C-alpha cells in the first residue's frame, strides 16, 4: 500500500500496536533543557529508575540562562540559578552529556540537536518543549512532549501514542524579494487558523519548500505547533544530506552511504493518501506581521487590522484591547518601541545575514531598543567570523550570548509593560515577552527594517 513520509517514519519505529488504539513508538533521541527537563530527571531519580540509553540523551541550558555577556549561573529570573544548578546535578547523576552555560556548543536545544547531528533524517526525537517540531526540517520525526511523557521516554526509550492523522501543506511557486519562510507560514496560519492541523502530523511539500535551505525549513517546521500540529516534517533530499554531512554525531564512511540510501526512501509515495491537503500560492505572499495575540492573527504588512465585524469575537476583542489597535488600522507605519531578533524560529546564521544586510550602514531609529540573540553559541561564533556582530553593533543592536532570552518571559528580562515589539520569535500570546508587552511576529528582515524606521516596515521599503 502506498504510504506517506509520516507513515514510513512511524512504521519504522512501531514496537507494538495495542487494541485500544495506542502504539508503542521507539524513541531514538531525547533532548532536555533546564526549564522542564530537570523535573523529569528528578522524578526518575526519586523512583530510582535508570535511563535506558543515557548516551541518547543530552541536557542544555537555554531557557533560564542569561544572555548578557559574562554570564554565569546567576540569572535575571528570580530563582533561575536553581534551575541551572539542579540541571547540572541531575545530568551528572545520570551521566548525560551537558551543554553547560559556557560550553562552546551551548544554544537553544533544537538548534544544538541539529548542529550536533543528534537529530538525523529518519530518527524519532522528543524534548519536553513544544518547538521540538523544528527538527522535522531534517526529516526527523520530532515532537514536543510533556514532563510525564519525558519520564516514560527516558526510562523505556518508548512512548505510547495514538497515530495522528496526516496533513500535507504545499507551498508552490517562487518567493518575491523580501519574502521569507516566516512570511509563508504566517500567511498559512492567517488563512487556515490556529487549529488548522487539529493534532495531525504535517508534511510540508511543494516547489517552494524544495527550494528552501534547511534553516528556512526549520522556520516552517518551528511554527507548526502554533497551528496545533503534532509534528512537521520535510522529506529529506540532497539539501538535507549536505547539511547533515560532517556533523559530529552523523554517520561517516560506509555507514554514511548506507544511511543516505535509507534516507532517500523517506518520501511520500506518489499515490499516498493524506487526511487533508492545504495549498498556498507562495508567489503571491508578501511580508507578513501579526497584529493580535495568536500567531494566526496575522496580515500582510501592507494591509490592515481586520474590520470590526470580523473582530466581534471574544478573542478578537481581547486582541484589540491588549494590542491597543483599532479595526481597519493600517499596519505599516505603526510605531514600535523595540526590535528583537532571536529564538529557535529565526536566529540562525542565514537569518542574521539577512538582517545584517539591511542594517549595514544604517542606524536603529532613536528610542528603539534593539536586541539580537543568536540561537546558539556556534551561530554566534560563525556570525562573528563574518563580522555580522559589528554590523549589528554599529547599527545600535545589542549583541548577546546565545539562548532563548526574551522570546519568553520568566520573571527576568523584558521590554516593559505597554511596549510594542517587532520580534522574529513564534508566540505573541498575552504576556509572552513580559507583562503587557505587545508582540508583533515577523521575519528577521521585517524586524531589521522596522528597527531602522522605528515603525513596522517591509524590507523592500528600505532603499
Amino acid at each position, binding site marked *: 500500500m502506498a504510504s506517506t513520509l509520516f507513515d514510513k517514519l512511524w512504521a519504522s519505529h512501531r514496537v507494538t500496536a495495542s487494541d485500544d488504539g495506542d502504539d508503542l513508538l521507539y524513541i531514538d533521541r531525547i533532548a532536555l533543557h533546564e526549564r522542564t527537563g530537570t*523535573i523529569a530527571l*528528578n522524578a526518575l531519580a526519586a523512583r530510582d529508575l535508570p535511563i535506558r540509553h543515557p548516551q*541518547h540523551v543530552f541536557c542544555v541550558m537555554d531557557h533560564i540562562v542569561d544572555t548578557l555577556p559574562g554570564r554565569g549561573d546567576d540569572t535575571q529570573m528570580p530563582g533561575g540559578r536553581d534551575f541551572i544548578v539542579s540541571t547540572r546535578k541531575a545530568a551528572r547523576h545520570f551521566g548525560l552529556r551537558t551543554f553547560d552555560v559556557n560550553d562552546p556548543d551551548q544554544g537553544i536545544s533544537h538548534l544544538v540537536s541539529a548542529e550536533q547531528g543528534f537529530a538525523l533524517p529518519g530518527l524519532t526525537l522528543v524534548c519536553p518543549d*513544544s518547538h521540538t517540531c523544528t527538527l522535522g526540517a531534517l526529516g526527523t520525526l520530532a515532537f514536543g512532549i*510533556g514532563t510525564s*511523557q519525558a519520564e516514560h521516554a527516558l526510562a523505556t526509550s518508548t512512548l505510547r501514542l495514538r497515530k495522528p492523522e496526516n496533513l500535507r501543506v504545499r507551498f508552490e511557486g517562487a518567493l518575491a524579494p523580501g519574502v521569507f519562510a516566516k512570511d509563508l507560514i504566517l500567511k498559512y496560519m492567517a488563512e487556515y487558523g490556529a*487549529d488548522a492541523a487539529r493534532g495531525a502530523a504535517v508534511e510540508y511539500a511543494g516547489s517552494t519548500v524544495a527550494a528552501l535551505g534547511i534553516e528556512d525549513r526549520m522556520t516552517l517546521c518551528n511554527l507548526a505547533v502554533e497551528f496545533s500540529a503534532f509534528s512537521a516534517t520535510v522529506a529529506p533530499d540532497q539539501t538535507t544530506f549536505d547539511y547533515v554531512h560532517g556533523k559530529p554525531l552523523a554517520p561517516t564512511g560506509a555507514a554514511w552511504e548506507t544511511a543516505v540510501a*535509507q534516507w532517500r526512501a523517506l518520501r511520500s509515495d506518489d499515490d499516498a493518501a493524506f487526511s487533508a491537503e492545504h495549498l498556498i500560492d507562495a508567489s503571491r505572499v508578501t511580508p507578513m506581521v501579526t497584529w493580535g495575540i495568536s500567531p494566526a492573527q496575522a496580515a500582510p504588512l501592507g494591509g490592515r487590522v481586520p474590520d470590526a465585524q470580523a473582530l466581534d469575537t471574544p478573542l478578537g476583542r481581547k486582541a484589540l484591547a491588549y494590542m491597543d489597535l483599532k479595526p481597519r488600522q493600517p499596519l505599516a507605519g505603526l510605531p514600535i518601541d523595540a526590535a528583537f531578533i532571536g529564538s529557535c524560529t529565526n536566529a540562525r546564521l542565514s537569518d542574521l545575514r539577512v538582517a545584517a544586510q539591511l542594517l549595514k550602514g544604517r542606524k536603529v531609529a532613536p528610542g528603539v531598543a534593539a536586541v539580537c540573540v543568536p540561537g546558539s553559541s556556534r551561530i554566534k561564533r560563525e556570525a562573528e567570523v563574518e563580522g555580522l556582530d559589528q554590523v549589528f553593533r554599529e547599527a545600535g543592536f545589542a549583541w548577546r550570548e546565545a539562548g532563548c532570552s526574551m522570546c*519568553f518571559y520568566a520573571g527576568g528580562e523584558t521590554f516593559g509593560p505597554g511596549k510594542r515589539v517587532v520580534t522574529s520569535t513564534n508566540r505573541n500570546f498575552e504576556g509572552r515577552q513580559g507583562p503587557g508587552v505587545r508582540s508583533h511576529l515577523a521575519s528577521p528582515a521585517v524586524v531589521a527594517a522596522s528597527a531602522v524606521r522605528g515603525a513596522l516596515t517591509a524590507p523592500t521599503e528600505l532603499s
Partner: protein
Amino acid sequence: MNAFDTHRGIAVAFLTHNIDTDAIIPSREMKRVSKEGLGEGLFANWRYAAPDDRTPRADFALNQAPTNEASILLSGRNFGCGSSREHAVWALAEFGFRAIIAESFGAIFQKNCIANGILTAEVDTDGIAGLAQWCADDPAQHQLHIDLRARVISGPTGKNVRFNIAESDARKLLSGLDPITETLADVERIDRFEADHLRRSPWVDLSTDDAGT
C-alpha cells in the same frame, strides 16, 4: 496517578478559543524545579490585579463563589495550545480541577492531562453552549456529573450530553496505573525491536565509539 471513573462538581466556563498554556500558567509562575506549588499561579494574568500584586480581581470567575470551588472547566476550541509545559496541568490539578470539557485540545496538553488523571472530554460547539447555559444560572445547584464509562455528562435537569475521548486515554484514566511500570512489565518486546532497529540503522546507536563508522 489518580484513576477517574465518575465525577460530580461545579463547572466554570471560559469559552474563548485557543486558551494557551501561557495563559493557564504564565512562565514567571514556574518558579521552582518542582511539580508542586503551582496552583497559586493558575490563570495568574487574569486572576490577580498585576504581576506583582496578588489582589484577586473580583471580575474573574475563579475569585467568585461558587466557581472558586470549580472542579470542571468548560472551554472552546484548541484549549491548552502552545507551550508544552506540564505545569499548566499540575496547576489545574492543584487548584482542584478533575475534568476539562472543550471542543478540542492542544495535543501535548491533552496527553499531559491524561498522564495526571485529568479527564479531557470533547464535546461539539452546541453541546458546550448547552452545558455552559445549564451552569450559568446557578453553578452550585447545577453541578455536572461525568460518567467516563458511559461517555456522558449529565446536567441538573436530567439532560445528557455525550462526549468523545480516545479509547486508550479512557483506559488509562479508568485504570490509574503508572504507565512506566506497565511498559517495563513487557520490556522484552522493546529489547527485540531495538536489536532489529539498531541492526538496520547502526548509526542510531551512540553507545559505542565506532557507531559512526
